[in-house]
């Protein structure tokens, strides 16, 4: 379902249609080559020995017996890895210090998370490599694991990194486990709270949750004798892997070539380095290409989920329910190294509202668990669970309808986001209105026939989206079909959404643009597939390349028609001579005449899209049913409305809304790292981690709202991430509506529901 909140001035032929994706046939045939599918001559297989302890000094690692075993080609330890100095890189969704990245991929003297690589081997096959790991002798001295905010932040805390210098409101602090404390302030929240008719403050705890991509990480490397390194890997960031591998292994940037394989899901979790440098070092030692594929347990133990943490939020309103002030204290557990998207959390927590007075403190805290990574709208679902749950409870307290509250306080064009930027034209109100006008919203929530408790919940969410750098090259073939080379791994249909934007310029069907995702030697620089940026920003590079191609062909037509290029116009896929209107050639006809008029036409569009991605807002409405005897929550009905600006391929836009909603529902109800006191994840399998299955979910109604983005030629907004932001509070608000008491913690699993119901019977509430 698509609503056009504000009819766009442009008419489109290709954009907004639903062609079959270009890579689709290969993917339904099982022919597409994902990371682990790669075969190379002489390929051998690597395996990683991982620390069983979350925190331990590594006193000795002896790989000599493993190295000597039949079928083993090479073994490495931390001593084989170059030492990387401090270098901070901006990976769009993550800011990373490569000193920490290099330590994370292989322990140097100390293991700081369970699953931390301690050594690695390469052998003739996977089984031989795994057997050889058993021959490696490691002497550990276990240390106390720090796995909670409380333990990490207490005055006499066990320090995880002696060399970590914290930045606490601009002051350098060491030793500490608090890598950063930031504060964002505007106005005078305390004075505003004093004047408020109602003030409510609550503390929420959000579990760390994994992206849960179905494809485990897989990386293959070949270190050629001429010191050229090739890396085939499942990554969202081939150019990021190139520069980070080069830095970590001390190679010249351009001597590293990264080939992005098809990627089986990422959601932010396939941005950083994991096994690429290890495969490279094993290849260097063995002279063979080395493939390393993680098992699922290692994916849970040793890659980065989204951070868990604690958020205290406070909101004050006047007698009409208008927000006067809001404050928040956000504490995220980054895992074993700094970096847990606290700045995005700060930007997002109150972004849906006009907040005249605000203060947000945020803490980035290291603990002895694997370093967290970006996870779809990094940092924002956790913070929004707090703000949207609080607003729902506040509405209950003051007797105000949440829809009315949202519309009264909604941020709109010109509103200052709490952390500073002023919103351009946005679809915040339009999404709320789309929900208000939906059949779902006006439907009655029928009573359960068997005594179960039903409730309805509403929540909003926001993600800004990124722009950044992209390059796309388009070449015209003699038959009028064009090839398009791009550099963004296609996680969910972006070959097609980029091709469609170029096709729109040419007036060609989408399938006359043939997209290829190229390696880092074969296309200009591209930032990663993340930040909801690919369709939005790389799409602009595709449009730019297409427009250059059209301009070049105009020149060629002018040569043929012996006129000036200014006299040649291009419309509806036809070149015309304005001076002699009978002179006209279609794009396809013109394409056949390029060879004789100056040679092939091939153009590269490059962009560095600055500033905001335009922002995509969403509003979600959910009906739940709670079984008071078991605590099980069933999702009965779900509607997700979100602003796409202009949906390039509406089916894939809907798919992003639905997929994000499903992940958010999982985070709300089931997903967490269930961890022993010594930092060992107890549920590191899909069975025990328990992501939503087809049976757990209903159809998810997607309402595509289109408020054109002024920063994109076709009005497109990046839409991939916002959909994970509202579900947890929406589900929580629905549960509260159903059972008459609130949960302040994810996951809202059966035992917590039963506890909340018992507390309610005993007259206690959960906060």
């Amino acid at each position: 379902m698509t609503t056009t909140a504000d009819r766009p001035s442009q008419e489109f032929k290709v954009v907004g249609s639903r062609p079959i994706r270009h890579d689709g046939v290969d993917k339904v045939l099982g022919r597409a080559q994902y990371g682990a599918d790669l075969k190379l001559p002489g390929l051998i297989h690597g395996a990683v020995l991982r620390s069983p302890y979350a925190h331990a000094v590594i006193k000795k690692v002896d790989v000599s017996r493993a190295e000597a075993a039949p079928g083993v080609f090479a073994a490495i330890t931390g001593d084989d890895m170059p030492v990387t100095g401090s270098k901070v890189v901006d990976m769009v969704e993550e800011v990373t210090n490569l000193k920490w990245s290099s330590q994370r991929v292989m322990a140097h003297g100390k293991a700081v998370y369970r699953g931390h690589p301690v050594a690695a081997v390469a052998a003739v096959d996977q089984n031989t490599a795994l057997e050889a790991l058993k021959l490696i002798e490691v002497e550990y001295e276990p240390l106390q694991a720090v796995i909670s905010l409380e333990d990490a932040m207490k005055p006499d805390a066990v320090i995880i990194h002696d060399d970590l210098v914290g930045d606490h409101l601009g002051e350098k602090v060491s030793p500490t486990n608090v890598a950063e404390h930031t504060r964002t302030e505007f106005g005078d929240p305390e004075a505003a709270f004093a004047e408020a008719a109602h003030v409510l403050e609550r503390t929420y705890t959000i579990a760390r949750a994994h992206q849960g991509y179905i494809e485990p990480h897989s990386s293959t490397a070949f270190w050629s004798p001429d010191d050229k390194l090739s890396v085939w890997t499942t990554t969202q960031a081939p150019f990021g892997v190139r520069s980070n591998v080069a830095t970590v292994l001390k190679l010249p940037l351009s001597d590293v070539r990264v080939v992005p394989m098809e990627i089986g899901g990422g959601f932010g979790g396939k941005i950083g380095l994991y096994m690429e440098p290890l495969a490279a070092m094993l290849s260097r030692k063995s002279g063979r290409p080395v493939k390393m594929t993680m098992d699922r347990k290692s994916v849970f133990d040793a890659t980065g989920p989204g951070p868990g943490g604690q958020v205290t939020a406070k909101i004050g309103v006047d007698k009409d329910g208008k927000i006067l002030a809001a404050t928040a204290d956000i504490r995220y557990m980054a895992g074993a190294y700094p970096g847990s998207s606290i700045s995005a959390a700060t930007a997002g927590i109150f972004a849906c509202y006009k907040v005249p007075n605000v203060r947000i403190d945020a803490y980035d805290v290291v603990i002895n668990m694997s370093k967290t990574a970006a996870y779809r709208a990094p940092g924002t679902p956790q913070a929004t669970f707090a703000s949207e749950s609080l607003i729902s409870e506040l509405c209950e307290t003051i007797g105000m309808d949440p829809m009315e509250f949202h519309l009264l306080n909604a941020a709109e064009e010109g509103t200052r986001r709490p952390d500073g930027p002023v919103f351009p034209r946005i679809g915040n109100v339009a999404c709320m209105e789309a929900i208000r006008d939906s059949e779902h919203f006006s439907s009655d929530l029928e009573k359960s026939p068997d005594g179960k408790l039903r409730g309805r919940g509403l929540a909003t969410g926001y993600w800004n989206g990124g722009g950044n750098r992209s390059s796309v090259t388009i070449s015209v073939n003699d038959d009028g079909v064009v090839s398009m080379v791009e550099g963004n791994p296609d996680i969910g249909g972006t070959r097609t959404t980029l091709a469609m934007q170029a096709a729109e310029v040419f007036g060609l069907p989408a399938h006359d643009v043939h997209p290829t995702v190229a390696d880092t030697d074969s296309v200009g620089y591209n930032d990663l597939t993340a930040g909801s940026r690919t369709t939005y920003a790389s799409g602009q590079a595709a449009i730019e390349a297409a427009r250059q191609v059209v301009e070049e062909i105009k020149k060629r037509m002018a040569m043929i028609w012996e006129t000036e290029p200014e006299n040649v116009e291009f419309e509806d896929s036809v070149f015309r001579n304005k001076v002699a209107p009978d002179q006209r050639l279609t794009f396809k006809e013109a394409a056949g005449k390029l060879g004789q008029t100056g040679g092939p036409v091939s153009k590269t569009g490059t962009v560095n899209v600055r500033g905001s991605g335009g922002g995509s807002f969403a509003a979600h409405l959910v009906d739940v049913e709670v079984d008071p005897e078991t605590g099980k929550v069933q999702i009965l009905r779900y509607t997700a409305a979100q602003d796409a600006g202009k949906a390039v391929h509406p089916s894939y836009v809907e798919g992003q809304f639905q997929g994000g909603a499903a992940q958010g529902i999982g985070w709300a109800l089931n997903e967490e790292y269930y961890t022993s006191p010594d930092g060992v994840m107890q549920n590191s399998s899909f069975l025990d981690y328990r992501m939503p299955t087809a049976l757990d979910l209903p159809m998810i109604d997607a309402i595509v709202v289109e408020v054109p983005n002024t920063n994109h030629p076709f009005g497109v907004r990046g839409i991939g991430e916002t959909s994970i932001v509202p579900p947890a509070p929406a589900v929580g608000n629905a549960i509260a509506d159903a059972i008459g008491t609130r949960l302040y913690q994810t996951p809202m699993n059966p035992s917590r529901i039963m506890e909340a119901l018992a507390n309610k019977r005993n007259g206690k509430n959960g906060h």
Partner: protein
Amino acid sequence: MTQQETPVRKVPVACTLNGQQTEFLAAPYQSLLEALREVVGLTGTKEGCNDGNCGACTVSLDGRIVDSCLVLAAEVDGKSVDTIEGMAPPHGLHPLQQAFLEEAALQCGICTPGFLVAARALLEREPHPDEHRIRLWLAGNLCRCTGYDKIVRAVQSAADKTT
């Protein structure tokens, strides 16, 4: 294996693979999944968890769908195995494959072969399953991208079209 004096002797396996008589040698510890991918070279069957929880490696074994990571390669001797590579007719697509494309039922595509093999088994048994039946049948296949909505619709669409 490396600790043993003599290497493990491989086991000959003769099976019908996607309708073709096929013979290969598998190590006794090797799963059907590993043998398909590493020995036979059919990489369309995917590994998501290697412990029977995600369904990405679903294949049909004598007409019954199984997680190929939980079956030893040596067990399929004398049996019939059907993988994603055998699903489409020559120069064509199975109606489910076509429906997955038309309904945009895949995003990253890594779970798609498993879903297709599982859904085919459902439609062979029950040509007109309702939504709940489809969801129940596919509950052993995890997808993290789509929220299942478009997958369920694709199966419904293929069922409608095969009448």
